[in-house]
């Protein structure tokens, strides 16, 4: 996976930039998306443990605690392997849910993918 997007499904796309990976998500993210996200990211981390992961939520219209759990689970794994994880572009529709969950106390937030990749 070198620079070309790898489509994992209708709501998820992964793109690699060296040791950084951007996951772009869209639509409503619940336990269905959580399972797919977990599988895709865990597969990636099995191959490249020190990866830094940035999750782009710009096109997400809904997320619930099932998806939040998948985010947090991946964060724990990435942190333990010495990598970094952040959230990019959280839109207004899902920001209250993210803030209520306290996830921003754990994960860095970036306005754009460029900001996230520049921080790495």
């Amino acid at each position, binding site marked *: 996976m070198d620079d070309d997007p790898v489509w994992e499904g209708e709501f998820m796309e992964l793109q690699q930039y060296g040791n950084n990976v951007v996951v772009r998500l869209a639509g*409503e993210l*619940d*336990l*269905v998306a959580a*399972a797919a996200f*977990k599988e895709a990211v865990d597969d990636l981390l099995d191959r490249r443990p020190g990866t830094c992961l940035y999750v782009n939520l710009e096109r997400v219209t*809904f997320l*619930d*605690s*099932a998806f*939040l*759990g*998948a985010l*947090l*689970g991946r964060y724990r794994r990435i942190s333990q392997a010495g990598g970094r994880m952040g959230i990019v572009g959280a839109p207004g*529709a899902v920001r209250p*849910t993210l803030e*209520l*969950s306290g996830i921003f106390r754990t994960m860095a937030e970036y306005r754009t993918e460029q900001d996230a990749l520049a921080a790495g």
Partner: protein
Amino acid sequence: MVTQNRVTVDLASIPENVGVARLLAAMIAAQADFTMAEVDEVKLAVSEAVTNAVVHGYGGQPGHLVRLEIRLEEGQLEVVVADTGRGIADLQLAMQPAVSSDPERMGLGFCFMESHMDSLQVDSAPGRGTRVFMTKRASALHMAGASAN
């Protein structure tokens, strides 16, 4: 605007039906005087309750049914999510935030339901399933009621 409606469905206990439940709840709430933000809150509460039934009630096993009842009565939405699964042994503990039997989960389901709906009642016992009853009144009607008093 619709002021009275009732929908009862039995959903197969598969993850894909959590989205079906959200869609039904959102459509019925949108028929009444709920704002878009309030419809989003209803969607989240229903998503959490149905997910709990599928994942915890039935342990992720398909082949079971989750009953979803949505009633709209003069601008008040009532939602019941019921399963005949394993039930909750310690309900008080289960309803505390960040308490979960699974390290992958945040344990925020009940917290989100409580903060996004006007009321939440949970009846559950081991081996006897779980019934979640939630209500929400459109804020426009809240305010109309307050000014009338």
